[in-house]
């Protein structure tokens, strides 16, 4: 086993954690050198460049290629690819042999852009990554900045953030129900899912002024307090949703066609999912009980009661069912938040970070200076590097932030869950039918804005 130099034993519980490497009786250690053998369908990943694909299209047979198969591109413009995902697939008749996700069509260099924006402007940039769950992008960037600043937030700011994120999880999963439903053939689901999501977005608009790309969660707190009467709006939403979810159950969950299309499709094993760094519903569908909200609590999640949903088969149906029931769990969480929302300030009172209230500017020179400084130069963030992760609707959304003491991030990197989860697709699709590939894409639910950044 590993030698940890005696000087540090800050690693807790060395035995309990490592289920893998267990020593024999004579002390010889069964050391895992590679996880590749955990991926029985490794060959399902097509590794072919554009040049090779073009040659293939010309009819030139590459060495070792099978004459019976055909390379077909699906996307980037295809209704079921959730944006601009392109899949290069090797088909043997109707069956997918190998496939390769080709991405980058939506690449706008957001990580580079972030280096030119101040920390306060940062969320305007990151919020556009995963456009189906913008609050999470803002949150992870703000949390990383706050960790570098060593900033403590007022209770209310934390709880408002939790509320908005959970509502966003609902709206994001509703969207996934809608588009996923249509991909499989439940076309009316498209309308229903979108309708419910719109109701949630209407609340977002009331609070933040925008339906998407809110720039509401900012370093130091949130942009504005919740409007008067927000409780009624939220409770109204939470009462509207459960019956609608029952309708989804009737329309989809119990439907034999729906089940036939999803059950046993796109199966991935637990070992594969972990080895491929999958997170979120993709990981949980295989039975791995891992949710950052519970296992590495952030925001107010350690004070909230909710269940983490796990599947057992790792197929497309499990992933669908997890999302549907996560909406129900989120509703449960939101009810608790409405009950327990603390009073107080909605943003930090650190004048170096938080712009002063408008009224203060008229009467205080200092407030005017702070206002001017924050919006022209930005606030300086102590040097250092930090990695912060939150559980977005798609999995672990991480932000690696490096500051050199200036008002702009020296480097900002986003670990997008969709980006990483995309790697599981070739494994899920292999040996399935082309029509099932659509079900697989829908069940992984990537958002290409975040994949390409």
């Amino acid at each position, binding site marked *: 086993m590993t030698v940890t130099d005696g000087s540090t034993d800050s690693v807790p519980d060395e035995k309990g954690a490592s289920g893998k490497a267990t020593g024999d009786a004579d002390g010889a250690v069964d050391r895992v*050198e590679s*996880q590749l053998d955990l991926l029985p369908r490794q060959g399902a990943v097509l590794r072919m460049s554009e040049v090779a694909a073009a040659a293939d299209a010309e009819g030139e047979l590459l060495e070792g290629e099978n004459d019976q198969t055909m390379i077909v591109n699906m996307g980037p413009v295809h209704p079921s690819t959730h944006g601009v995902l392109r899949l290069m697939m090797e088909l043997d008749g109707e069956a997918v042999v190998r496939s390769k996700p080709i991405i980058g069509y939506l690449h706008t260099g957001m990580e580079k852009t972030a280096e030119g924006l101040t920390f306060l402007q940062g969320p305007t940039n990151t919020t556009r990554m995963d456009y189906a769950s913008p609050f999470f992008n803002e949150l992870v960037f703000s949390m990383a900045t706050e960790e570098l600043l060593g900033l403590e937030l007022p209770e209310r700011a934390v709880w408002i953030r939790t509320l908005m994120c959970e509502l966003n999880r609902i709206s994001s999963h509703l969207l996934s129900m809608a588009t996923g439903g249509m991909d499989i053939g439940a076309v009316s689901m498209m309308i229903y899912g979108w309708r419910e999501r719109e109701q949630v977005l209407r609340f977002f608009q009331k609070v933040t002024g925008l339906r998407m790309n809110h720039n509401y969660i900012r370093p130091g707190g949130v942009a504005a307090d919740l409007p008067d009467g927000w409780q009624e709006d939220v409770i109204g939403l939470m009462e509207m949703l459960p019956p609608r979810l029952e309708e989804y159950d009737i329309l989809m969950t119990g439907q034999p066609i729906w089940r036939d299309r999803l059950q046993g499709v796109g199966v991935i094993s637990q070992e594969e999912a972990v080895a*491929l*760094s999958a997170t979120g519903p993709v990981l949980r569908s295989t039975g791995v009980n891992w949710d950052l909200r519970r296992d*590495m609590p952030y925001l107010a999640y350690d004070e909230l009661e909710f269940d983490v949903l796990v599947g057992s088969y790792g197929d497309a149906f499990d992933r669908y069912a997890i999302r549907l029931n996560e909406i129900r769990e989120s509703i449960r969480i939101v009810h608790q938040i409405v009950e327990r929302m603390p009073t107080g300030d909605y943003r930090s009172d650190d004048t170096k970070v938080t712009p002063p209230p408008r009224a203060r500017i008229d009467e205080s020179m200092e407030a005017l200076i702070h206002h001017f400084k924050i919006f022209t130069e930005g606030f300086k963030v102590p*040097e250092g590097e*930090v*990695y912060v992760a939150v559980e977005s609707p798609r999995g672990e959304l991480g932000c690696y932030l490096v500051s050199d003491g200036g008002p702009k991030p020296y480097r900002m990197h986003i670990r997008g869950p969709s980006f990483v989860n995309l*790697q599981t697709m070739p494994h899920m699709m292999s040996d399935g039918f082309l029509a099932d590939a659509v079900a697989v894409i829908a069940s992984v639910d990537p958002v290409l804005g975040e994949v390409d950044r």
Partner: protein
Amino acid sequence: MSAEATDVDTETEEPAPPATLYDAPVQTVGDQQVIHPHRDEWHEMAITLLNDGWNMCVDITAVDYSAYAAERNLPDGVIPERFEVVASFVSYGRRARMRARAQVPGDDPRISSLYAVYPGIDFSEREVFDLFGITFDGHPDLSRILMPETWIGHPLRKDYAVGAIPVQFKAGGGAADEGVTP
């Protein structure tokens, strides 16, 4: 905050022998431990981590430190280089995170790939290769992923300028004529 982060909370009495974890210098940043292996030990380190219960490598990224204004906060014995490859690990058993940072010189930007140990970093390594031009030895398909295959240059390097399109103003003259955006 990073200054005091170096002292590791140990029960050792001796005055600060260079703290190590997995045979690499270690720092504690926030609640996460950061190890600084040499790039030659990168692959070996990953195997060690995997066998010690660090189930998942969630992310690999890189930083180009060539324009870093502050002093680099590295433990003793780690020689700063232009690039730094950063890998984040998660352990389910410990419910903990850890980072590994390896220095990679700018004139020889290569490091071994962790693909065999943690196959999930396939895309991440391709991304770093694409945007930083760091080669991962042993990766099965090190090709561009976000930029087009024919792209020249590595956009996230600090010497890669942010593109600008010249703006034509009505009055003419000035910055627009020189092809510089205001």
